[in-house]
């Protein structure tokens, strides 16, 4: 047994060995995290930009909506980030994410664009775990169902119309899947109510200068 083998069989060797390995692994991970952080943040911004672009047409604004953010309490202890579209100084539309509760235990995440008069510009699903082939037809890539919200507002079709047809409302359900469309209709209606409640703040609230000042504080998100 030479010196190396004797050292290897010593108890301390195990601890030192695991410690050194952990240190090395930690150093590599920290370095790599630093390398990719900028790229990953860029990708997330692109994702957000894409989502917003689906519900607010590019022709409606000349600003960078991702960075024109106002955070509003949603009344249930949470906060909603509202992205604003501007033409010059004037707010021409807002977009924000909201959730709806369908058939699956985890909620459906959606994004909605609304013009200053409270008319829906578009609604899209961002993530869902509804049943494939049934509830997932609310996605724009599967069916045109979600486009039925375009142009609608709180008063068109009115409180009675904001249900699926099975419940006496204006919106279609799917054969074999009523719960998902029902949940989405309810979620969109609540999101419109949120807009109505905060309209003055969202449309006239802050100048772009102060909105830009807000941005660095949210940089971490």
């Amino acid at each position, binding site marked *: 047994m030479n010196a190396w083998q004797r050292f290897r069989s010593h108890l301390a060797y195990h601890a030192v*060995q695991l410690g050194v390995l952990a240190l090395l692994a930690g150093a590599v*991970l920290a370095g790599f995290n630093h390398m990719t952080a900028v790229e990953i943040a860029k990708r997330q911004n692109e994702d957000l930009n894409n989502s917003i672009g689906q519900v607010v047409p590019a022709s409606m604004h000349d600003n960078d909506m991702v960075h024109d953010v106002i955070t509003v309490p949603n009344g249930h202890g949470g906060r909603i980030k509202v992205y604003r579209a501007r033409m010059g100084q004037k707010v021409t539309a807002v977009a924000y994410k909201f959730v709806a509760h369908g058939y699956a235990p985890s909620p459906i995440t959606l994004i909605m664009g609304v013009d200053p008069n409270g008319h829906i510009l578009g609604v899209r699903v961002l993530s869902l775990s509804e049943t*494939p*082939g049934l509830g997932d037809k609310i996605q724009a890539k599967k069916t045109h169902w979600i486009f039925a919200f375009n142009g609608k507002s709180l008063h068109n079709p009115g409180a009675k119309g904001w249900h699926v047809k099975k419940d006496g409302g204006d919106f279609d359900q799917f054969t074999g899947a009523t719960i998902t469309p029902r949940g989405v209709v309810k979620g969109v209606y609540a999101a419109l109510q949120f807009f109505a409640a905060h309209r003055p703040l969202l449309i006239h609230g802050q100048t772009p200068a102060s909105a830009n000042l807000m941005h660095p504080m949210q940089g971490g998100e």
Partner: protein
Amino acid sequence: MSQYQQIMKDGLWNNNVVFAQMLALCPTMAVTSTATNGLGMGLATTVVLALSNLIISLLRNVISNEVRIPAFVLLIASLVTLMDMSMDAWLHQLYQVLGLFIALIVVNCAILGRAEAFASKNKPLASLFDGITMGLGFTLALTIIGGVREVIGSGTLFAQASQLLGPAFKGIELTVIPDYRGFLIMVLPPGGFLALGFLLALKRQVDQAQARRAEQRKKATISSIAPEPVGAEQTA
């Protein structure tokens, strides 16, 4: 048969992670709703498996026997985290589909299994090769299961492959059955078990047929008095 040929045969067929070792069934069931997802997950796992085999083989004389398992787990977890970050940064589309499952490559027992059974006892080059072929065998299994489920479940094959893996994969996107209404159960989790079950039965059939043929050949050589070295090699 050389060592490398044997490793390749084991990885792709004889000792295939899914179809023979029956390991890593959790990711297998979870991501194989389409062939594209299966392929993506398989390739990601192959990279981790090859690198973990290589590194563990290089360190096999440093890592002591008593603490090898925590050391392997530490190395594999680090590699998977690197993989996770680089896919998020550079293969974002694929990451959005497989995101959750990438982190779960850590608990893919096939990786620790190869580290323990092969890499800790063999030279780096052979271990790297074993990692790659085992990974490709896993990829093959996932892609086949995904393909079967996708064709029967939604009538397409490799749908959205170009979106996930790059424009070069546009050519493999196929609509196998046009205007297909879909067969939902194959896309849902039970379809994974059904597809795997039938494919396993098929592999057993092929293996048995091969064994019978080898048996007959052996008998034929024995009856022709002069035994050839072929038979000896096969029993070895």
